[in-house]
């Protein structure tokens, strides 16, 4: 059974993520212990709140996460968790991120109401196992004020339009990020969590 560590760094509630992954067949552990995170087959980095404080809260786990990723183990960053994957964010002026996906995080322009909150649709740009069974036009649940700008266009798996077109799913090697909350996106979200468990399972076999 795939063991997934859900990093608990005091942000948001993790019940739905945990349950979604469990329904998909994974064994989950909500933890902030570096040893437990390092031992997992895959990591989920959830996130709600402010960039800087989240990075601070992660503390020692920053290096663990980088280690796990360089070992080729899958990492799923959700919402703020996805933003933390980038090099830096302009939130609060300037904040350093994990740097796992080169690029930056910028504020959504006020063309439409900010934060972007509600159900919006995905436009699939590239195929990837994470999006298996998901079509363009599928609605997912967003709540955010910043968006990511990866340096490499190839990193963008899906986009969403809200005043501007922004990346809603990004990927780089074993690292996947979703701007929306799959655990709050009903059936479509559960499908993606299932796909992530599948990816984690196949990587585990390879190891």
């Amino acid at each position: 059974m795939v063991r997934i560590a859900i990093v608990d760094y005091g942000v948001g509630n993790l019940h739905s993520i945990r349950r979604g992954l469990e329904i998909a067949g994974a064994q989950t552990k909500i933890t902030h212990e570096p040893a437990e995170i390092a031992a997992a087959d895959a990591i989920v980095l959830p996130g709600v709140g402010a960039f800087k404080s989240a990075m601070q809260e992660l503390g020692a786990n920053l290096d663990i996460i980088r280690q796990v990723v360089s070992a080729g183990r899958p990492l799923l960053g959700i919402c703020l968790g996805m933003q933390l994957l980038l090099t830096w964010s302009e939130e609060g002026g300037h904040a350093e991120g994990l740097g796992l996906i080169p690029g930056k995080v910028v504020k959504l322009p006020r063309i439409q109401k900010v934060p972007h909150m509600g159900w919006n649709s995905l436009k699939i740009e590239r195929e990837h196992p994470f999006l298996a069974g998901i079509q363009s036009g599928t609605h997912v649940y967003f709540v955010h004020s910043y968006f990511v700008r990866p340096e490499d266009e190839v990193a963008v798996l899906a986009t969403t339009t809200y005043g501007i077109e922004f990346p809603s799913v990004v990927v780089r090697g074993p690292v996947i990020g979703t701007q929306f909350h799959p655990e709050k996106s009903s059936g479509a979200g559960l499908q993606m969590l299932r796909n992530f468990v599948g990816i984690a399972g196949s990587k585990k076999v390879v190891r």
Partner: protein
Amino acid sequence: MEMRLRNYPQFKIHLKCKRFPSSKFFPKVPFLNRKKVTYCRELSIRSEFANWGMQMLTKRIIPCLDVLNARVVKGIRFKQLRDAGDPAELARWYDEQGADEVVFLDIGASPEGREAMFGVVERTARQLFIPLTVGGGIRSLEHIGRMLHSGADKTAINTAAVENPELVRAAAKRYGSQCIVIAIDAKLVGGGKWEVYTYGGRKPTGVDAVEWARRVESFGAGEILLTSMDADGTRAGYDLELTQKIASAVSIPIIASGGAGSPQHIYDVLTATEADAALAAGIFHFGVYSVGDVKRYLHGRGVPVRL
């Protein structure tokens, strides 16, 4: 009418009034404020999304469950009660039915009931994969924190906000505006004015609803859940005038509540007003219409909904 925004000159904006689509004359449209148009009010942009090929937020359909001592009941005009099941099961069923969010309203007043609610929310969060908002008797920052920690995505605050507006500010700062919904119960007093009521619609406050909505926005509320006391339970339609008055006064999302009796009513409130979501209880609970019925009806008439 075409214009360009000062800060985003690359975007061409076509303005059209949703209510009077053939009108070319903005100043004559009663509820369209020119100042807001300049700063990009959602109304103006949404009506022309087809020209931009723009995707956008769907209108949300939100079933509401009244919960008393961990059981679902349904109040009519805030009075009579009818039992209808287990909150967690019912919420999960609504998720399967296509609801965009679910609201739990704790209508009990006892400390035991309040305590039981945390357990209900925890159980629900483990089987629900759409956003959950919980309200009813939430009075303090600690209570909000505990509710969010138990699994609620948002907390709805009503009486406590009116009696202590600083709570709104503190909660928005601590937990983020997106978690803070201010529930406003309003009753018509005449002359186009509505009064805010607290304590489950029992206590008049003398506060003007529109003014109050503006204030809560300034304090950091993420959303407003607006219930018309006059329409609530009547199944005769939402209070469109009240809803539009509040929706046009603020920039945060408005969830309209009170009066839904048919899919047509929901269509009306989502098209004749700037409401972002429609909340309903009775029409869903008694199986008269399903969430799917409502969404298909709306979709068939061009309202953007998640199917």
